């Protein structure tokens, strides 16, 4: 049945609703459905379940919502009330009697009791919930993004619940959705006992309670604020001061955040000092490679500021990079961890260091005009450069958190795939942006695809290159390959034992590969 043509029905009969709720829970437990599950999979499961129960297929969409809820149930239940949002629609109000007023955020309930909104809000707020009576998910997403909310319990009509399915699973926000009994946008109704069940449910489970990426990001950024670095850069030596300057200068801090994520996901207790040191180690190696890359690529600007060699000369810049490498190893050596963990960490970091420089070497060759490059060669460069940078962050965090080897292997594969997907996407973004000063070497992946199609790659002008890319429809080809790699990333994550890291990385992927 075509889903766009289905009538989105909620069973009116309490007994049937409760039966479907109960059976969905048992079913999801039995097959261990992990959130966020893709819509197509849940659709199939819903059909199976309704058949098994001999219930009419007209409740398929209702059942999909139940299965989605059940897949999230344990995660949501593990989240303290104080980190949850209850989102009610304003159409629940009694239009003729409502005395509430609206502000920029939504309805401010006046507690006139003409509708059940006030009772629901009071109950939820008593528990510690943040509440909002408003249509749409803008504020909810805002709260997740600023790091103050980890789960949403939302009431809405079936069509809206269905529409929000995509964005919600993309951002991997744990959510329980309750459908209104019928749509109509006016004087609607809700199954109150059901809502109260969901609002009250809580079960402590440290292994499931998600890590707020945004909150972690704020914490990491504080590590580089003035003063926080003094503990590690304290000699007031000239070289050390220059190195500190480049540690402090901006960037997304994506690598330290990834390292911190995996450390927090695996460690039983977060040691804040280890967290700080870990993020600093990763940032030292990252900044060292940037300072050296900028010399090698003759770049004048980074983060809109002069690069180190522009500001202090090439000799000083090489030296700053070297210092940062040393600093990274030094901080690593000072970690308060067991000897075997330390050894494992050293092995991973030094191995990454070698790979990154090999990848950079191959890239330099490529940039020197060697346009005859095979797909295999270019993917290896992506793996060694970008993939390795992600890998060392995720793995060092996981090693310090004492993760099992099986998960380390999965994270290794994931990082390779992630690095490749990231670079292909970068290629495509640059190609679509059509910048004035673009060079053919800005599109290594497309060059490889051209070469694969029998082009010998001796283009002088970007325009000729662009023409051939269009003629051979290589953009769609690259898009297809990209989506394939992204899907493989998700597949790797599904193998992870650690539910917290799986979910966090789902959110990271959702954010980076938005469309």
């Amino acid at each position: 049945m075509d889903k766009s043509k289905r009538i989105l029905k909620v069973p009116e009969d309490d007994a049937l609703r409760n039966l479907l709720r109960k059976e969905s829970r048992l079913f999801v437990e039995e097959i261990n459905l992990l959130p966020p599950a893709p819509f197509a999979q849940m659709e199939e499961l819903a059909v199976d379940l309704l058949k098994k129960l001999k219930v009419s297929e007209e409740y398929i969409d209702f059942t999909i919502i139940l299965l989605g809820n059940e897949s999230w149930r344990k995660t949501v239940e593990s989240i303290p009330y104080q980190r949850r949002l209850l989102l009610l629609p304003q159409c629940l109000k009694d239009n003729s009697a409502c005395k509430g007023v609206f502000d920029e955020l939504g309805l401010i309930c006046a507690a006139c009791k003409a509708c059940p909104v006030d009772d629901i809000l009071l109950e939820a707020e008593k528990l510690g919930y943040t509440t909002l009576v408003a249509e749409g998910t803008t504020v909810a997403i805002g709260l997740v993004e600023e790091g103050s909310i980890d789960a949403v319990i939302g009431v809405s009509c079936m069509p809206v619940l269905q529409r929000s399915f995509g964005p919600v699973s993309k951002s991997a926000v744990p959510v329980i959705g309750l459908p209104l009994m019928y749509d109509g946008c006016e004087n609607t109704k809700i199954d109150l006992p059901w809502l109260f069940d969901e609002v009250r449910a809580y079960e402590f489970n440290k292994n499931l309670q998600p890590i707020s990426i945004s909150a972690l990001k704020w914490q990491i950024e504080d590590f580089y604020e003035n003063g926080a670095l003094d503990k590690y850069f304290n000699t007031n030596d000239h070289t050390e001061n220059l190195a500190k300057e480049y540690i402090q200068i901006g960037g997304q801090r994506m690598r330290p955040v990834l390292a911190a994520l995996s450390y927090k996901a695996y460690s039983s207790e977060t040691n804040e000092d280890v967290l700080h040191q870990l993020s600093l180690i990763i940032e030292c190696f990252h900044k060292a490679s940037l300072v050296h890359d900028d010399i090698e690529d003759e770049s004048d600007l980074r983060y809109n500021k002069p690069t180190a060699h522009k500001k202090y000369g090439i000799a000083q810049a090489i030296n700053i990079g070297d210092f940062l490498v040393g600093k990274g190893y030094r901080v690593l050596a000072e970690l308060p961890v067991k000897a075997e963990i330390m050894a494992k960490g050293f092995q991973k970091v030094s191995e990454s260091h070698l790979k990154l420089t090999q990848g950079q070497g191959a890239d330099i060759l490529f940039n020197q005009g060697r346009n005859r490059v095979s797909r295999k060669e270019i993917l290896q460069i992506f793996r060694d450069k970008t993939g390795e940078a992600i890998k060392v962050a995720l793995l060092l965090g996981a090693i310090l958190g004492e993760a099992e080897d099986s998960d380390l292997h999965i994270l290794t594969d994931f990082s390779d795939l992630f690095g490749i997907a990231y670079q292909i996407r970068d290629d495509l973004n640059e190609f679509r942006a059509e910048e004035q000063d673009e060079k053919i070497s800005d599109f290594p992946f497309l060059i490889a695809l051209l070469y694969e199609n029998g082009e010998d790659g001796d283009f002088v002008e970007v325009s000729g290159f662009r023409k051939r890319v269009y003629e051979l429809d290589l953009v769609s080809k690259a898009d297809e390959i990209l989506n394939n790699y992204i899907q493989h990333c998700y597949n790797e994550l599904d193998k992870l034992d650690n539910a917290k890291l799986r979910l966090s990385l789902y959110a990271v992927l959702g954010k980076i590969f938005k469309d």
Partner: protein
Amino acid sequence: MEKQNCLLYCNCGAKIITDKKQNVLAESFQHLHIDVFELHDLCAFSLNEKEFINSLDSKYNKVFIVACYPRAIENMFLQNNIKLSNFEVLNFRELSEEEIVSWLKQETLDSNSIPNYKVLKSSLEVPAWYPVIDESLCTLCGQCARFCVFGVYKFKSKKLDVLNPLNCKNNCPACGRTCPASAIIFPRLPENAVLSGAQPGAEKSEYSPAKKPGLFVMLNERNSMRRSIFKEGIMQQAEEEKLKAINEYKKGLEEK
């Protein structure tokens, strides 16, 4: 000959801007090389002398309007079926005298017409105080029509009309305060607010999630104040305004 531009300058005397500002603008406009019409006032003309405003469309290339919020003017024209294909509103609530005058001087630099300043008075004998609906915001809930006791609105089969604008009681914006979508504008309301035509989003910016949990703190403060907001707040103000309007209406009937 190429068509010139003209200027409509609203002088409503509703104390929206100071007398001094009103006079400075009038004085400066007399020297502009452009046809200037000082209207008493734009709200009244839009209702009562709309042919005059509509006639400007064919005579002039562009009509500058010095009055209040653009959102108020645009929706007032829409509601009163006034069609100007090319007009620009300079908001004297927010722009200073200098900003307005220098902008218009710049725009009329090339003009070769001689200064021509006319004062026009509406034949409407009561203050042109009436609600203007911003259709882009109105959710057609009908709340305003149910609230108003003077029959200003007609709400039937999901359609809202300002049927009897002059039934509206001077200075009573009460229905506008009850509108859940902030879709009602009273252009003559002295306070600078969404209710008088400011952009609804304008107040939003201070809520936008700051670097750290600003939205969360704000939302929870708002919720903890929920009951008191209501008690001290806006709905009560609206009810009082309505009562006052009813009383004045009654008084007016007795005097007759």
